[in-house]
């Protein structure tokens, strides 16, 4: 199985994602942002970093890179796409995920471990976790403060599309555990079709106990499992929901 890892000028977690994919048993395929095809890969990761220096707004310039045309098509076809940190910001700017990531409430870049509660385990990205499981991984961003208007937020919640929420070590999702001011303490969400994931913390930096945590590895393993198991019917269903979502 081959998973594309996109590199924009300014991406700096592409190698970390590459290693994470390989640790989960798949082959990582580096794809430069000026490519116009995903080369028949089975899933896509948009890694973290500072694509185009994050100038203007994080993700604002990157979403116009040539590779984003096939990525958007791929996502609309119900195939699996993951955006981590800057990747999440890019997917929001590209309209594949709702909302936006604003400046952290602290106004500072924040780099530290955080605890997350896994809200659902019945998704292509979280099947290797338990629902309610508390996981730890680093976060490192200046703009991770998730915002969506009230309607979009209600939709996310009622449709169970929040997959990861900031919490304390016991799994209580309290405001004290909210590192950046995100609405509803949202750390990661999926699109209408459930096939596009965006999250701010870095599972790609938590794949090995020597680094302090391997809680990120199941995310990549879930992805690999899902690509193996995904049936055409599931993809079509996701595609239908993704298109319905865009129409709104």
């Amino acid at each position, binding site marked *: 199985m081959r998973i594309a890892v996109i590199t924009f000028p300014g991406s700096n977690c592409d190698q970390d994602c590459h290693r994470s994919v390989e640790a989960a048993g798949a082959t990582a395929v580096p794809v430069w942002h000026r490519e116009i095809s995903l080369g028949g890969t089975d899933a896509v990761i948009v890694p973290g970093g500072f694509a185009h220096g994050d100038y203007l707004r994080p993700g*604002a310039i990157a979403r116009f890179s040539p590779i984003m045309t096939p990525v958007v098509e791929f996502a609309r076809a119900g195939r699996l796409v993951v955006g981590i940190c800057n990747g999440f910001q890019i997917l929001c700017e590209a309209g594949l995920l709702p909302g936006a990531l604003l400046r952290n409430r*602290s106004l500072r870049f924040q780099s530290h471990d955080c605890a997350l509660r896994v809200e659902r385990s019945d998704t292509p990205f979280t099947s290797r976790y338990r629902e309610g499981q508390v996981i730890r991984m680093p976060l490192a961003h200046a703009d991770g403060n998730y*915002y969506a208007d009230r309607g979009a937020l209600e939709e996310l919640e009622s449709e169970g599309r929040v997959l990861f929420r900031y919490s304390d070590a016991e799994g209580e999702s309290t405001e004290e555990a909210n590192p950046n*001011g995100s609405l509803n303490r949202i750390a990661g969400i999926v699109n209408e079709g459930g096939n596009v994931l965006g999250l701010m913390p870095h599972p790609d930096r938590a794949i090995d106990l020597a680094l302090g945590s391997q809680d990120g590895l199941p995310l990549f393993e879930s992805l690999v499992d899902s690509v193996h198991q995904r049936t055409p019917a599931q993809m079509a269903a996701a595609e239908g929901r993704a298109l319905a979502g865009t129409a709104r």
Partner: protein
Amino acid sequence: MSRFRVEVLVTPRPGLLDPEGGAIHHALASLGYDEVAEVRVGKAIYLEVAADSAATAAARVEESCRRLLANPVTEDFTVTVRGEA
């Protein structure tokens, strides 16, 4: 063809929390500027644009705002032609 100076102001949409504005407000107050009642912070982008007319320059820049310069989810913008360069 002339060259126009165009000013784009991009501001956080009303109702959106503006932590930077809040921080500046707080700092102003602690420096004694307590007559300041509200602060909001946006971006100012200055462009020099070649066009036949000020109206064309403005129209093109407005289009670029919708596509790139502002994020419709969180930001409003205004475009003003400030004269010829």
